[in-house]
């Protein structure tokens, strides 16, 4: 097997492998979206993040605009600090709301951003001040039961 | 001034946990001589070659090659010593994926920086010495046993070594090939001014051209001397070996009970 044929075949093989890898990355995965774009970091505090996990999507109007980087706990104010990276193509006003929603009925949780009306925009390392916590099922049920109970009380 | 003694083995002891192969071996090999090591099967002849080549280390005693103690050398030291040696393995041990030409060129390419034209001349020269210059394009699988061994010999002498070692070079050869190899061993040795160490069983051929012979039995050198001396030797072991006697110090019967009791009588 002379060298030139050998090199040719090996070259074809490696090329096939790399094409497959690229194909997987582009067509199959979601690499083309925001993983390679530059982002800016903002934070938000929540009293309860529910089931929010790092790498959860940050969406606005249903479109993915960023990802959750990390979630930490602040022992001074006893709240969760969520750090997220937002694609720098998208700017949001300073009074944007950050809410925690659930995808579908029992799906994973994500952050939804609703733009406010402030003429000034969020810049890197800003803090989103308006937040809404995740819906915790137990609280919902207990609230429902409490409402039921008080309604029955009223009717009596 | 080069030392006359190129390899010397002093008080060598070597063995594994199950078996002590060498108990106390003393051998000396002088420059320019063809020396044979003979003995029964399993007496450790090939092991001596491996000890000289540094593939295994002795339990005690020492093997000295060209003034250096083999088992004390580091990796680099051993490789330097090996460049002075050429070894012919029992069945040739040619690299099966390389052609005859590439096989002989292998040590030259590895250890020198010569360009292709010079290498070609050297390879063809070595192949010519063993009579196989015309076969340089063949693959090892296309060669007969005798031819393969000759190519391996060409490879072993490719770098003009000072010590050439042969592991059972006559085993399984037809008379013509045997004659050829005998002739080559002697001719190459004298032409290169090298020392040849041959491990063999073959009495007739070896006695015809060797300068000195060592006999190993029971882990020691049982007898040594020139072929003419040994032919006159009265030692029972040497006599049994040289005259191919069926029974003697090396018994015919494996250890067993009395024949009568085995037959149940």
């Amino acid at each position, binding site marked *: *097997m002379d*060298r030139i044929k*050998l*090199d040719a*075949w*090996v070259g*074809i*093989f*490696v090329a*096939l*492998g*790399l*094409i*497959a*890898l690229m*194909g*997987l*990355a582009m*067509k*199959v*995965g*979601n*690499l083309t979206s925001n*993983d390679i774009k530059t982002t800016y970091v903002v934070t938000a505090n929540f009293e309860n993040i529910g089931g929010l996990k790092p*790498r959860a999507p940050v969406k606005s109007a249903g479109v993915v605009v960023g990802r959750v980087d990390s979630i930490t706990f602040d022992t001074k104010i006893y709240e969760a600090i969520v750090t997220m990276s937002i694609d720098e193509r998208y700017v949001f006003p300073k009074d944007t709301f950050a809410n925690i929603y659930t995808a579908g009925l029992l799906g994973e949780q994500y952050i939804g951003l609703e733009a406010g009306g402030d003429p000034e925009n969020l810049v890197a390392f800003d803090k989103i001040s308006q937040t809404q916590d995740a819906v915790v099922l137990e609280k919902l049920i207990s609230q429902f039961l409490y409402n039921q109970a008080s309604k029955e009380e009223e009717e009596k | 001034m080069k030392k006359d003694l190129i390899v010397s083995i002093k008080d060598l002891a070597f063995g594994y946990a199950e078996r002590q192969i060498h108990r106390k071996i003393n051998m000396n090999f002088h420059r320019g001589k063809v020396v044979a090591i003979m003995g029964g099967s399993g007496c450790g002849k090939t092991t001596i070659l491996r000890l000289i*080549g540094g*593939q295994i280390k002795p339990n005690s005693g020492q093997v000295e090659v060209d003034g250096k103690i083999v088992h004390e050398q580091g990796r680099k030291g*051993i*490789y*330097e010593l*090996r*460049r002075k*040696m050429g*070894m012919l*393995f*029992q*069945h040739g*041990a*040619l*690299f*099966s994926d390389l052609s005859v030409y590439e096989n002989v060129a*292998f*040590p030259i390419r*590895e*250890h020198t920086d010569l360009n292709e034209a010079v290498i070609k001349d050297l390879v063809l020269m070595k192949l010519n010495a063993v009579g196989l210059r015309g076969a340089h394009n063949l693959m090892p699988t296309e060669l007969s046993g005798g031819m393969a061994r000759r190519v*391996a010999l060409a490879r072993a002498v490719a770098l003009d070594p000072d010590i050439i070692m042969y592991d059972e070079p006559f085993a399984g050869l037809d008379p013509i090939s045997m004659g050829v190899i005998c002739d080559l061993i002697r001719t190459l040795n004298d032409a290169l001014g090298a020392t040849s160490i041959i491990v063999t069983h073959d009495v007739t051929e070896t006695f015809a051209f060797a300068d000195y012979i060592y006999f190993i039995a029971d882990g020691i050198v049982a007898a040594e001397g020139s072929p003419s001396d040994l032919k006159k030797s009265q030692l029972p072991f040497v006599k049994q070996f040289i005259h191919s006697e069926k029974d003697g110090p090396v018994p015919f019967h494996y250890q067993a009970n009395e024949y009568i009791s085995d037959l149940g009588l």
Partner: protein
Amino acid sequence: MITFFENIGRGLRLKITRLGAATRLFFTIISYSSESFKRFNLTIREIYFTGVLSLIIIIVSAFFVGMVLGLQGYYTLQKYGSSEAIGVLVALALVRELGPVVTALLFAGRAGTAITAEIGLMKATEQLSAMEMMAVSPVARIVAPRFWAGIITMPLLASIFSMVGIIGGYVVAVPIIGVDEGAFWSQMQANVDFSYDIVNGFIKSLVFGIACTIIALFEGYDAPPTAEGVSRATTRTVVTSSLAVLGLDFVLTSFMLTV
């Protein structure tokens, strides 16, 4: 009765000793690896023999696996009305698990046994000894290039496997069964995460490549220099590689799912 346990103990001790010897071979290969890269032609030759010659079996197997995934997945998903998730099912199953694992098993069977047999045979015909006596390290010249070739080849083969498998699944799902083409790809893209699934799959195939190649090399290098010894060694290569791959798969998967 006691001898039964004695045998188990002896067998275990033997296996642990061999594991140590294999580890030592691994580090020896690493320290002798400079030649594999300075004379890269050696490694390229080995990539040809392990990689290029395995392409046929990998591509054909991948296509069939993908098609079966498509079929099986469809008939299960449509019971829950989620037949459009077939793309996600095929892609995730392949990229996360089947790609790396099945490729590794096929690699061990085809390339691994070839390596073991080749090196074992070289040992049996004293070619390795001859090389040593010519002051050339057989580890640097013969063993290390095959090691690096295996490491380079495995992830490439696994990627090809996953891609061809997805195509196989596509062929079954869209033209044959009639799942919507757009849904197939868009659901897949939405649910397969690059760094999580694809990169992890890549890492897995890399680890499997190291394991299978080392096992094949060690069994060949350590084989008794007889015909029977070599044939037993090739069997051991396949068995040990398969067990190692499946075991490592569990370990790696549990790592990756928690991180």
